[in-house]
């Protein structure tokens, strides 16, 4: 009698052993570990040996450390997987190319990222120059009496009125302390990028993890997480920020911590409700029937299928955080040394010479930058949602 069970088949392997070696060392984790170790080493060096300076006299603040760690996280779990999955990345890239608006928005944000991370290191802080205050942008003119000196031509107006014209020395003009508006823009871009990096690296994974866990696991864990999110939604971030402000003063780190860590509730809720639908889908059942673990199914099948909801929600959250930061800065409760766009706008709206509309460039330029950033984020959010879905048309 032929034993049918002895038909040829793949060799049996102890999969738990293979899995262990296969899963513990991945490029993502290697990069993450190495990057975090470098940041930690620098931090220890800074704390116990000598200060680390980003540039010249610019010591590294706590918020800089947090953002450095955030950049490591984003590199490990954003850039590395994109490089590893070349085909998927190329497919998304070619889909992006078909959408000029998305390309433009991405270019703007990419430029902002470079400007916000590299240029502050090159340019340093906006320099005070009380000899040349309220210089108008190139092509415009301002009252020559506001400033001790005029960088450009001086034009005779009616009567005793004389105008100072814009010059290449200050192409976008200067503010009431003679700081170049372009360098204020660069400093503001740095703050905006800090908000983006912090949100993407820490807030978004937290929101996603909580949403997916609650939705996928269900039961008691779902109840606990949901209740926690509901409670958290009841705490106004700005109130907590002011409480902290009383103790530590204006701090971007405090602002990111309070606004960032209290604002992800809606995203987690949204993700949870989407996951509740996805976990009943056929492919999830199939993956289970193939012997996949919950963690595997959640990561490989559930998460990619909630990007439709997740991506716009996340981008919206980032935009809200940028606006919230600018708002707090506008009210004057942020670190003035950081020159956030919000504080520059506030400064331009209450000038010590002339009126706000006479020195419009001080407030308008950062306002335009802020608006362009938020609009670009929203466009990127909607665009990415579409290109990440292989079904294409919506």
């Amino acid at each position, binding site marked *: 009698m032929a034993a*049918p069970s002895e038909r040829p088949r*793949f060799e049996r*392997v102890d999969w738990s052993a293979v899995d262990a070696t296969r899963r513990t060392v991945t490029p993502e984790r290697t990069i993450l570990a190495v990057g975090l170790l470098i940041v930690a080493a620098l931090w220890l060096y800074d704390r116990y040996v000598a200060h680390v300076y980003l540039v010249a006299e610019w010591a590294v603040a706590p918020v800089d450390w947090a953002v450095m760690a955030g950049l490591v996280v984003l590199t490990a779990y954003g850039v590395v997987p994109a490089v590893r999955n070349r085909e998927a990345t190329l497919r998304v890239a070619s889909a992006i190319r078909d959408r000029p608006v998305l390309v433009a928005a991405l270019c703007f944000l990419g430029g902002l990222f470079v400007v916000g991370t590299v240029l502050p290191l090159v340019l340093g802080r906006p320099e005070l120059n009380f000899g040349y205050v309220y210089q108008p942008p190139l092509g415009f003119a301002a009252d020559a009496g506001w400033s001790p000196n005029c960088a450009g031509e001086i034009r005779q107006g009616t009567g005793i009125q004389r105008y100072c014209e814009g010059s290449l020395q200050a192409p976008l003009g200067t503010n009431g302390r003679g700081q170049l508006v372009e360098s204020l823009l660069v400093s503001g871009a740095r703050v905006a990028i800090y908000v983006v990096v912090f949100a993407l690296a820490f807030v978004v994974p937290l929101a996603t993890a909580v949403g997916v866990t609650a939705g996928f696991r269900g039961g008691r864990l779902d109840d606990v997480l949901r209740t926690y999110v509901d409670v958290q939604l009841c705490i106004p971030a700005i109130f907590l920020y002011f409480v902290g402000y009383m103790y530590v003063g204006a701090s971007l780190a405090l602002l990111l911590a309070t606004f960032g860590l209290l604002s992800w509730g809606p995203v987690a809720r949204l993700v949870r409700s989407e996951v509740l639908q996805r976990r009943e889908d*056929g492919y999830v059942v*199939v993956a289970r*029937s193939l*012997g*996949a673990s919950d963690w595997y199914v959640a990561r490989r099948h559930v998460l*990619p299928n909630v990007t439709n909801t997740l991506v716009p929600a996340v981008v919206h959250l980032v935009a809200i955080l940028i606006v919230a930061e600018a708002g707090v800065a506008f009210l004057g409760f942020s670190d003035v040394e950081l020159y956030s766009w919000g504080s520059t706008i506030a400064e331009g709206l209450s000038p010590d010479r002339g009126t706000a509309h006479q020195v419009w460039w001080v407030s308008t330029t950062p306002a335009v930058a802020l608006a362009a950033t938020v609009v670009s984020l929203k466009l990127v959010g909607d665009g990415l949602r579409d290109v990440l*879905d292989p079904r294409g048309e919506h």
Partner: protein
Amino acid sequence: MSGDHSEPPADPLLAVEDLRTLIRADRGTVRAVDGVSFAVDRGEAVCLVGESGSGKSVTCESLTGIVPQPPAEIVGGSVTFDGIDLRAADTDRSAIRGARIGHVFQNPQHALDPVYSVGDQLVEAITIHREVDEATARERSIDLLGRVGIPRAAQRVDDYPHEFSGGMAQRVAVAIALAAEPDLLIADEPTTAVDVTVQARLIDLLRGLLDDGMGLLLITHDLRVVAALADRVLVMFGGTIVERGPVEAVFDRPAHPYTQALFDSYDGTTRLAERPSRDELPADGCRFRAECPHAVESCAGGEQPGFHTVGDGAGTDDHAASCVYYGDGYDAEVIQSAGRAVQQSATGDDDD
């Protein structure tokens, strides 16, 4: 193997004993699977037939525990697969799923993840359990697609599920279930969404796999598929198996009144309309007694009646029905004559 014939035959590939699954809903608990026992051997095709809601799918999903828990809860019984107790707490069921027991689900279009190409999903099915390099896995995916009848498999492998028709998605779902060369395939209506030529091809494929020693547990509504593939038939009603036996015996001499009613309804006569619409099935005794034309008092109460061999003179002890009429003290002829009438009207259909 030793030639000792006095020894009982080797354990079947899959043995299910008294399996019970409850589904807890807000409006009460449904006993979806209520004491089901059967066995599937290597190289054997066992077919589950029965109307919608009779518990066929829940039975299949309870075997490897992939039925969603909650709301479902497997409350009793034993499932032994190749000597492994699948119900034991320390059994790693995820190592069995896919690798040794493949599953094809209903709703093929939903079985594929829209964000991955079909090839990715086949490669996934292969690599979840086996360490193979990507090129080998891809080659095998293309081979599998070809075997289930996808034309131009080498090109289609990179397409996304939405670019496949329902029937093709169905075939891909079969290919995914077969990717790891399982010893047992549980197929929930694998041929419903495909046209007859593809159906014939799938049946050929399954026959070939049966010849290679794979066990098959098949759910279908299509009696033609039953006739073409099955070795044995299990008829389910109300979460219980009411009749079991070799396919010829069950087709030729349907013994349980429900089987007779089921087969009768296939020829499209008016009997179906006469059946009362039901609110609740009886929770004890014979589940079919409310609709059974032959119901007697002893049909009520207790468990579903035990199996009695249908003494139909064909020499098959395997053919048994869960009906009191086949026990002592009743005249089974009453039911069998009704069955013969059914069989005559259905003969034209089941021999394809």
